[in-house]
């Protein structure tokens, strides 16, 4: 073997050993290493012949066995191999740090957008998605009566209904009945008597919910019915109010003067609301068992809510079937088969059904906002990537892994998304607090709404997701950019593909904004309409309060009636009060009773039972009620202090128009049960449930002993004199006046009627504020996108525009040329948005009042407003055209 042969063999051996190193290291260093080995081998041959060369071979083997796998495990220059995330992150971070304004703008946008989304997500999640805080909440149902023979589909159950449901077995594991009252609480410890909420329940309620008392014991199954000891379980909140001592167990509290022994305190996190036949679900402070057995109650009167627990995992249809079967049995036995039906509604669905449409709309608006945000971020990142196109192209030409380029771009976007997500989560903790303050007090599960870390993480994850998706656009574009096209287009910076992509994204943004803006405008319009609705009473001047009357101190109707008289006189004597009245309930409080009623002999009768026997709302009031609330008297008169012989009633406009279209209502005699009452007057229709829809016809009775309706505890209304004192300022004097009559009377719910009105609209206000904010945000984002497009276009076409101007084009015509580009994008966006508007209209229809989802005025206003903002966003950057000096511009090229 010649020396040359030895060296050739050595080189072959070294190249073989090189295979132990990873490919990219070999590419980088391989040739130099082979040379170094060959140099070593050559020197060894000179020094000590072939034996020494063999030594070099062996040491090279040792070296390669150690360093080859070593380099694979611990690469010296990892990033070139597409594995060093840390380094890429650092680089992306540095790049971002070099343009703080860009970061601030993007992160700010994301913070606001994601923050708003997080707030809505929190509300929707807690109200619609989170499970009820009971054991196996999916097996819980509320049961209602449907009186098919007149228009009343959601009535309370009667006692016998619950007794039969409990007997049914099968799919029905257990049923609890309950009823809510508001007695006055007093204790031996003294302190002012207060009105609290009491739930009268069957003793199985807590077992059925899966709740055990925090201290003390649950009701025993037989602790119900007449002549049983009076025992009570109180909530943790009430326990704290009463001192929070363990000694509460076995002590007595008095409800309306009757003693009850406290046997248990519920856990702190116990939350329970009883769904109502009408109106909002309500909770209670104290729970006591029934003193009557369900089966012994009058089947004709419905007054109980029934909570049913099905056997675990029973499908809802089976439960429905079982309930309906009981309903048929009860109908036949107790109601002469007139058609009474029982039906069950899943507990959660029943609770949230009233707010579901608003929540769905808000949720969708939130998703839309995210989409706008996503497109916006993508547009901006694309613009930024354009500045780096040379860098991308060069690194690609130098053989950089396309994946590495994608990763570098996406990482930057991801980082922005995460920053925005963290900002959004922080903003949301604050926003949620503000929102809960604004939310209607009867929004189901309001206590549940608090921002937590789960949601925070979700928001950060969504931010990261948005960043990833938005970064994909520039990344894909970066991969496609190659050196050739770039070299070819040095004269006109910016490749056509990128511009097309950006334009497309702006069009999408405009389209999304149109949809969101339309929804926002419609909801806001509907809300402003509600604000100007005439509720049928004068909210401005009325202060209201509730005064429960304990039965122990005022044992009969005459005593209570005398008290009412003294209260009315004392309240009327308060300086600044111009009228005083009282009744079972107040407008917008859903506190009336319902019954079906006929007006025999009325000219408006048609002979159809459905028309002539309507369901009506009725309640009893004291003289002065209509005057104090400013309810207009349209015909006849209302109740006077002097009680006339015979029964009197007042009806509302709705019933008068329906039954006495000729205006002959006053004087008509109407049978009420076994009695007959004379219509003495007609008043305006008062909104009893909510502002946005007329309720049933209304009948008012006199609240007096021996009349058809006499309640002890009443809601009082005092009207402030027109010019003297705002109603809220009367509160202290009014409370003092009540105490002067009897210091042991509790006063509660002191509120102005304006507050009651405001609360009844708070859900709509919340939706309106949120959705308006969303749509304005979307508009702003779209305007930003347009601004960027037009500004970029002016810069890119500088040369062309300069030539045009050098050829004699007016500034105005060049300006129009640039503006036309923006206008075209807006017009396209609006066109694409139109079908979206139609679909969105159908979705939000449920929350709109008095506004058609396709209201032409709103749609036109949105289109014009968007057009104006968009054109302004185009005009500002387009004005740069005016600064082009053709001579200078052309010489620069």
């Amino acid at each position, binding site marked *: 073997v010649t020396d040359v042969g030895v060296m050739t063999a050595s080189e072959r051996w070294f190249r073989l050993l090189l295979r132990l190193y990873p490919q990219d290291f070999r590419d980088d260093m391989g040739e*130099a290493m082979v040379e*170094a*080995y060959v140099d070593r081998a050559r020197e060894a041959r000179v020094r000590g012949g072939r034996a020494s060369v063999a030594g070099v071979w062996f040491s*090279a083997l040792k070296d*390669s066995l150690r360093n080859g796998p070593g380099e694979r495990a611990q690469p010296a220059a990892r990033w070139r191999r597409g594995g060093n995330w840390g380094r890429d992150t*650092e680089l992306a971070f540095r790049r971002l740090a070099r343009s703080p304004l860009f970061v601030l703008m993007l992160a700010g946008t994301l913070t606001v957008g994601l923050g708003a989304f997080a707030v809505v997500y929190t509300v929707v999640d807690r109200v619609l998605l989170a499970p009820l805080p009971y054991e196996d909440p999916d097996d819980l149902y509320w049961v209602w009566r449907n009186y098919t023979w007149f228009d009343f589909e959601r009535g309370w159950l009667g006692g016998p209904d619950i007794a039969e449901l409990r007997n049914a077995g099968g799919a029905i594991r257990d049923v609890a009945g309950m009823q809510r009252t508001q007695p006055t609480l007093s204790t031996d410890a003294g302190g002012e008597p207060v009105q609290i909420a009491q739930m009268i329940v069957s003793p199985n309620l807590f077992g059925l919910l899966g709740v055990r008392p925090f201290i003390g014991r649950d009701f025993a199954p037989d602790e119900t019915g007449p002549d049983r000891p009076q025992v009570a379980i109180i909530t943790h909140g009430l326990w704290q109010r009463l001192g929070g001592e363990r000694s509460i167990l076995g002590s007595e509290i008095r409800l309306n003067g009757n003693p009850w022994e406290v046997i248990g305190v519920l856990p702190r996190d116990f939350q329970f609301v009883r769904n109502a036949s009408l109106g909002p679900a309500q909770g209670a402070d104290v729970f006591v068992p029934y003193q009557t057995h369900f089966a012994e109650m009058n089947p004709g009167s419905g007054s109980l809510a029934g909570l049913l627990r099905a056997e675990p995992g029973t499908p809802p249809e089976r439960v429905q079937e079982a309930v309906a079967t009981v309903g048929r049995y009860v109908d036949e036995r107790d109601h002469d088969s007139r058609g009474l039906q029982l039906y069950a509604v899943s507990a959660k669905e029943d609770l949230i059904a009233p707010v579901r449409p608003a929540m769905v709309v808000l949720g969708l608006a939130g998703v839309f906002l995210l989409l706008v945000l996503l497109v916006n971020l993508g547009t901006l990142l694309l613009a930024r990537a354009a500045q780096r196109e040379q860098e991308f192209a060069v690194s690609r030409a130098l053989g950089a892994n396309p994946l590495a380029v994608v990763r570098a771009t996406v990482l930057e976007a991801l980082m922005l998304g995460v920053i925005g997500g963290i900002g959004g989560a922080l903003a949301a903790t604050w926003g949620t607090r503000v929102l809960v303050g604004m939310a209607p007090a009867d929004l189901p599960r309001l206590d549940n709404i608090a921002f937590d870390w789960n949601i925070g993480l979700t928001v950060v994850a969504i931010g990261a997701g948005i960043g990833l998706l938005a970064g994909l656009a520039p990344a894909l574009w970066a991969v496609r950019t190659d050196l050739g096209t770039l070299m070819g287009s040095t004269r006109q910076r910016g490749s056509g593909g990128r511009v097309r992509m950006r334009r497309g994204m702006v069009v999408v943004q405009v389209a999304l904004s149109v949809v969101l803006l339309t929804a926002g405008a419609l909801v806001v319009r509907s809300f402003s309409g509600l604000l100007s609705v005439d509720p049928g009473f004068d909210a401005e001047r009325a202060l209201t309060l509730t005064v429960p009357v304990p039965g122990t101190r005022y044992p009969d109707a005459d005593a209570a009636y005398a008290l009412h008289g003294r209260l009315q006189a004392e309240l009327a004597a308060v300086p600044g009060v111009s009228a005083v009245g009282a009744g079972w309930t107040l407008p917008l409080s859903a506190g009336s009773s319902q019954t079906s009623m006929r007006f025999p002999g009325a000219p408006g009768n048609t002979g159809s039972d459905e028309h002539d026997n309507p369901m009506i709302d009725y309640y009893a009031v004291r003289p002065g009620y209509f005057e104090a609330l400013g309810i207009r008297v349209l015909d006849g008169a209302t109740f006077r202090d002097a009680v006339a012989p015979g029964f009197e009633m007042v009806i509302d406009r709705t019933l008068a128009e329906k039954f006495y279209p000729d205006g002959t209502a006053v004087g008509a005699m109407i049978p009420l049960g076994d009695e007959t009452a004379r219509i003495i007057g007609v008043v305006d229709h008062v909104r009893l449930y909510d502002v946005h829809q007329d309720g049933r016809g209304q009948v008012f009775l006199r609240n007096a002993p021996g009349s058809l309706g006499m309640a002890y505890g009443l809601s009082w209304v005092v009207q402030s004199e027109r010019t003297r004192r705002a109603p809220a300022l009367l509160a202290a004097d009014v409370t003092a006046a009540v105490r002067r009559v009897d210091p042991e009377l509790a006063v509660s719910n002191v509120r102005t009627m304006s507050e009651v009105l405001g609360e009844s609209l708070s859900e709509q206000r919340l939706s309106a504020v949120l959705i308006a904010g969303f749509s304005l945000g979307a508009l702003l984002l779209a305007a930003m996108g347009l601004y960027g497009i037009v500004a970029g276009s002016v810069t890119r076409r500088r040369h062309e525009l300069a030539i045009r101007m050098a050829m004699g084009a007016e500034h105005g015509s060049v300006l129009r040329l640039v503006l036309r580009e923006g206008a075209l994008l807006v017009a396209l966006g609006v066109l694409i948005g139109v079908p979206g508007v139609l679909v969105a209209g159908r979705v939000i229809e449920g929350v709109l009042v008095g506004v058609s989802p396709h209201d032409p005025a709103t749609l036109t206003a949105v289109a014009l407003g968007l057009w104006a903002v968009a054109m302004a966003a185009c005009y500002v950057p387009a004005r740069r055209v005016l600064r082009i000096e053709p001579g200078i511009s052309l010489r620069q090229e």
Partner: protein
Amino acid sequence: MDRRRRRPESRLPLRPVEFHILLSLATGDRHGYGIIRDAEARGAAPVPDVGTLYRALARLVEHGWIEAAERRPAADAGDERRNYYRIRPLGLQVARAEARRLEALTRAARAGGLLRAGAS
């Protein structure tokens, strides 16, 4: 490159092969085998293996202490294919810091009687 802001002391101690690379390049640009020969001339024991050396070179380039030199010294003009390396200011700082550290250790060893004064 990206690590330049870190204080050179924070990178210490260096591996012997890294110190030899910086030491050689401090006197002029070298290719890899030149560095090995320098180390041999200094009486380094053991002399760095080729694989060890080139991995260290890649690492130091990555750290931004050295860089690939674009032009080779005139003396080596005949050798077209070789990769030459040049020390960067950061590399020089690190090398000086390492030398100071070693010196301090040596002084301490003498003071402690582990080395005779004057011995190298």
